[in-house]
């Protein structure tokens, strides 16, 4: 099934884009979005690879696992956000210490 392969490759590309955001962005709130893209790309890759078999009913097991994954990813993101908020409240910055530019930089 060509379409499934198409979506699988898109999933790969989304993972790569998210990875780039994760590396290339310094503000943590942007990194959270990038991180979610990586996760979503992986779900898409997983689901599309599982859906390659044309003509037969879709496999329910990967679908169930992806639904579980989406919910867990959301809860992890919420935890992530709460920790960032605390970090910002403590430090006044939304970048990690090692990414904060020196005053003379």
């Amino acid at each position, binding site marked *: 099934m060509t379409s499934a392969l198409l979506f699988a490759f898109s999933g790969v590309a989304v993972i790569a884009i998210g990875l780039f955001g994760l590396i290339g*962005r*310094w*503000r943590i709130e*942007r990194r959270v979005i990038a991180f979610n893209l990586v996760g979503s790309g992986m779900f898409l890759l997983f689901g599309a690879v599982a859906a390659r078999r044309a003509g037969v009913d879709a496999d329910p097991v990967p679908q169930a696992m992806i639904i579980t994954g989406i919910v867990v990813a959301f809860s992890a993101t919420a935890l992530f956000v709460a920790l960032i908020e605390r970090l910002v409240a403590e430090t006044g910055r939304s970048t990690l210490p090692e990414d904060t530019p020196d005053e003379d930089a």
Partner: protein
Amino acid sequence: MNALAIFTTVFLIAGLFFFIAGTIGLLRFPDLHSRLHALTKADNIGLGLVAVALMPQAPSIFLAVKLGLIWLFVLLASAAVSQLTARSALGHRAQLGSGETNDPGPV
């Protein structure tokens, strides 16, 4: 092509017209309020025509009613959001230049 198919096609073409017109308006109109006006055409009429077009294709009355309900939901949401958008734009114009700064800009 039977009568139902013609009905569907005609309504879909009309719906598509409103979607494209709405998008062009959203892109080309000069200010927020006229853009909003264009947007609501796509929301309200475009989707409505698509929903009506597909009703004869639905295998049961229940599904045809569901198509109508979906349109109704979008209509309701769009009306309220548009109202809020328009009002917020007016409100912000009033306090122009008061304490609004540009985003520091993430790198």
